[in-house]
């Protein structure tokens, strides 16, 4: 019986995506998703971006999501199509990025028979998604898709996967629109919307009492939305409390503001880590006490009262025990704190924490990010500093790969707005940055998008240059080329007697010629005199550009808290080789 109100599974998927206001999908076709690709062929609301490998699709979706605040969507086929996205799904789970992955599956009657391109998709992706589904009945498809989007974007965001067998893509059913679905609350886990008044009161009281307070802000602030940033800026300005951010918190608070101590953690600023160590009040806004941030736990900020705002209940007391916490959304909580201060006419003007700021300014005098730029070889730090100076007038989006260049980017590129900084933090996925730049450029077609890369990471997803060329995405790949897996080499130098086992990247391609062979543009700076011109040329070209910046091969990333050390046991530079006591212990850590 053919009913006019019935649609195929593939059409239902497209209708649901339209309903969810999805305008871009990253994907790669294959046998088990052909009916969906057929449906994509006959429509015009959805722009499909053909990546060159599925890993590119998932990182592009992450870049799209991070830079736009919307849910990123990708479409892959069964078997290898979906196993190729496992890394990206894990990356999105670790960094709380909302994405929805649609995967094809072999027809229902073949599931379990080791059919061609069959794999246990929901089994493989269960631990690396926030939730996943195998849709066996087309009548459940509409609500499944809508629930998937809701779950991906609610509470602590994350990746959700929907596996759709091929026969379900052909089968017919009614479409149920988003507005006709009533979500079951226990499944959405949106976090509390109710202000925890007691938390707010306690916090303000402790701020009044404290002498050495600090804000420690993470990616949760980003995920709570732009308003969270606005409220945070208001609160910091009112209270004059210093603020440090995690890698993912960069941009939630203007990096050049006088109250900003910059990033904290393993490669964080001296003043930020020392302030965390010595503070008497820590206000954690959406950060998760990650091991890169805390260093040795038993010496982590020993004298502070700790407040923690986090929508994820499992982040509370997981690594560090806190004194007060709330699971209410950050925007709501910060708003209430600001309102409480205003309505009670609490003035922090006389407080000002003069001694505390005096101490912090002493620490600042160490100039922990100082480097010596000579006349010839480009220092990688300098390359980032110049890139920042020459692009800061534009609304620039920066993605990165993983390694030394990533940390230098975090240290020397300053962000004034949220969502401009897109990096792989929790999982540390090399090869993330370039496809993420593709996604960021799709979401922000008129903005400058730069992937700050290392040559080793770049090689991991180099195929996506073709994607950028095909869709005329003028992304810039800014390679700090030192011919090494720099961070691996640095650890080998510090912890393994400079035995550089397999960290030299031999037989590198000529990146300029490589760019040209892809119909992109290649530029190069071999020494300091060519740096600014190369950067300016790169920015001026309205096409994908690979900039091959030759930098000092032996430069290391400092400051550094070696693994197993505490915040106050930082290494400041290569000249500061006070052997950390914990070297042997640090070797076994990551």
């Amino acid at each position, binding site marked *: 019986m053919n009913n006019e109100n019935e649609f195929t599974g593939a059409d239902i998927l497209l209708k649901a995506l339209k309903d969810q206001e999805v305008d871009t999908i990253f994907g790669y076709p294959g046998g088990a998703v052909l009916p969906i690709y057929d449906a994509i062929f006959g429509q015009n609301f959805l722009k499909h971006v053909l990546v060159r490998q599925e890993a590119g699709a998932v990182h592009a979706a992450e870049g799209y999501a991070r830079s736009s605040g919307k849910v990123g969507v990708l479409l892959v086929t069964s078997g290898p199509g979906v196993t190729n996205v496992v890394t990206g799904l894990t990356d999105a789970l670790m960094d709380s990025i909302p994405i929805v992955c649609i995967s094809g599956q072999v027809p229902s009657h073949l599931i379990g028979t080791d059919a061609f391109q069959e794999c246990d998709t929901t089994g493989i992706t269960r631990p690396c998604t926030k939730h996943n589904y195998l849709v066996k009945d087309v009548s459940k498809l509409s609500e499944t898709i809508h629930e998937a989007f809701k779950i991906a974007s609610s509470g602590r965001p994350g990746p959700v996967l929907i596996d759709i067998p091929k026969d379900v893509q052909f089968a017919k059913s009614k479409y149920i629109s988003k507005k006709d679905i009533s979500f079951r609350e*226990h499944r959405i886990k949106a976090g509390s919307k109710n202000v925890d008044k007691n938390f707010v009161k306690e916090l303000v009281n402790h701020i009044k009492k404290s002498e050495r307070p600090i804000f420690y802000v993470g990616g949760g602030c980003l995920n709570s939305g732009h308003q969270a940033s606005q409220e945070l800026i208001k609160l910091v300005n009112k209270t004059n409390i210093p603020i440090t951010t995690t890698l993912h918190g960069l941009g939630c608070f203007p990096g050049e503001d006088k109250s900003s101590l910059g990033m904290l953690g393993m490669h964080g600023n001296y003043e930020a880590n020392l302030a965390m160590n010595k503070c008497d009040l820590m206000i954690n806004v959406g950060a998760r006490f990650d091991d890169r941030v805390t260093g040795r736990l038993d010496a982590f900020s020993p004298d502070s009262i700790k407040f923690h705002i986090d929508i*994820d209940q499992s982040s509370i*007391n997981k690594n560090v025990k806190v004194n007060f916490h709330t699971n209410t959304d950050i925007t709501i909580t910060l708003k209430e704190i600001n309102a409480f201060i205003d309505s009670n006419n609490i003035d922090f003007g006389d407080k000002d924490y003069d001694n505390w700021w005096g101490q912090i300014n002493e620490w600042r005098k160490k100039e922990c990010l100082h480097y010596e730029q000579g006349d010839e070889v480009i220092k990688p730090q300098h390359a980032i500093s110049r890139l920042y100076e020459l692009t800061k007038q534009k609304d620039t989006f920066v993605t990165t790969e993983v390694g030394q260049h990533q940390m230098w980017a975090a240290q020397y590129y300053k962000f004034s707005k949220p969502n401009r900084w897109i990096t792989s933090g929790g999982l540390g996925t090399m090869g993330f940055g370039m496809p993420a730049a593709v996604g960021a450029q799709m979401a922000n077609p008129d903005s400058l998008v730069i992937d700050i890369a290392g040559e080793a990471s770049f090689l991991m997803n180099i195929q996506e240059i073709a994607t950028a060329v095909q869709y005329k995405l003028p992304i810039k790949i800014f390679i700090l080329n030192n011919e090494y897996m720099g961070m691996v080499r640095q650890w080998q130098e510090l912890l393994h007697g400079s035995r550089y086992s397999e960290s030299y990247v031999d037989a590198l391609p000529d990146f300029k010629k490589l760019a040209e062979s892809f119909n992109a543009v290649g530029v190069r700076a071999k020494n300091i005199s060519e740096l600014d011109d190369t950067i300016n040329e790169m920015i001026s070209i309205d096409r994908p550009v690979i900039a091959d910046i030759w930098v000092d091969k032996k430069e290391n990333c400092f400051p550094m808290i070696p693994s197993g050390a505490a915040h106050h046991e930082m290494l400041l530079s290569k000249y500061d080789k006070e052997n950390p006591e914990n070297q042997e212990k640090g070797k076994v850590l990551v």
Partner: protein
Amino acid sequence: MSSTSVYPTPINAFKQSKRSVLSVIVDNEPGILARIVGLFSGRGYNIEALNVTVVDVKKNLSRITIETLGEEKVISQIIAQLEKLVPVHSATNLANLSESYEAEICLVKIEFENEEQDQKILNFADIYRSRTVQKRQNFVVYEISGISERINKFLDDLDTIGGIKVELVRSGPIGLGI
């Protein structure tokens, strides 16, 4: 019996750990058990015993009872992680409730060779009020229920009888907060 009773812990290494019985209400849907078991194995938690059954057909709910070992901090983290799973309605540590009850059921088949053994077995079975499920010339099958500790004691006592062969199955504890 209240759930505060102490279960003899087989591994001394877990001295810091407390035995906890967690009661989890979930949507009965494909993969839910895999999600829970995967959470435990992936994060390095212990499952000492596990019981899963549908308890509300209309609402499609299952109750899962998990016996686990861990410090209090770890148990709280397990609860928080369980409650993050989409199909989970609630996860409760029965020890945190003012009142809760536990029970376990055990089927045990005992093969014996002589009358003396038979008598001793019968004696213990009587003390523990086991129900005879089956009795043949050379073996007997009992059903015994109660808190886990009671079953442990029964089995310990059986152990004192030489020359018998014991085969058994246990449900693991189930618990209910009141």
